[in-house]
């Protein structure tokens, strides 16, 4: 069930999985002049901080999350010449190797799509209200800490 509080057509926050091919097909529809499509998929790793992870649970802030993602997406469209873009982020319980997030960007020339997709991911990591809780095989549950490296990564886009 998508929690599209704000009816933003290129932002989806949902529990269910997504299919890359069909999302890419939808993204490209009606844009014949696209020459490049870059996609990023984030997946659940089976290790974090040296520990095996059994379950990852994602919480978000309904309403604010969608707005924050749309703001990042529009900022990317302002910085680079893009034809279309899309962000899907899953919430709820996920397991190792599951897909967590999809960022897809289509443009006429490849450089813009590469930069924009990377930019969106770097900003999503620090600016979109999601929180992760992981369960270890021994049953221990802990909230995942934010990373200094994600704050650092954002700096490359300073204008």
């Amino acid at each position: 069930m998508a929690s599209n509080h704000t009816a933003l057509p290129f932002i989806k926050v949902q529990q269910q999985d997504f299919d890359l091919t069909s999302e890419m097909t939808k993204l490209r529809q009606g844009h014949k002049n696209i020459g490049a499509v870059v996609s990023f998929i984030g997946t659940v790793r089976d290790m974090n901080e040296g520990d095996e992870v059994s379950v990852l649970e994602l919480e978000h802030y309904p309403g604010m999350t969608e707005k924050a993602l749309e703001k990042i997406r529009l900022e990317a469209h302002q910085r680079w010449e893009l034809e279309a873009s899309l962000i899907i982020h899953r919430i709820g319980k996920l397991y190792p190797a599951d897909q967590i997030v999809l960022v897809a960007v289509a443009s006429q020339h490849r450089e813009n799509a590469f930069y924009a997709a990377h930019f969106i991911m770097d900003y999503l990591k620090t600016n979109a209200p999601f929180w992760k809780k992981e369960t270890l095989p021994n049953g221990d549950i802990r909230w995942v800490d934010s990373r200094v490296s994600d704050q650092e990564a954002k700096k490359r886009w300073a204008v």
Partner: protein
Amino acid sequence: MIQILYFANFRELLGQSEEKIPSTHATVSDLLVELAARGGDWKRALTENTQLQIAVNHNIASRETPIKAGDEIAFFPPVTGG
């Protein structure tokens, strides 16, 4: 009235995800003083936690952000999506 939301470890620690209280605060800072006065976990989570993040009406805010009746104020830790 104002609407207050708590997310992630704040929600768990404070034992609630939302509440409505009368609007008597000029800024987020004033609200934090009132909530911290509840003592115990409230004091620790809201005034001694350097990781506290604040949003007012879905926008990232700070302790100095003004608030008024009808506002939605959220408290949460640094985000970890993606």
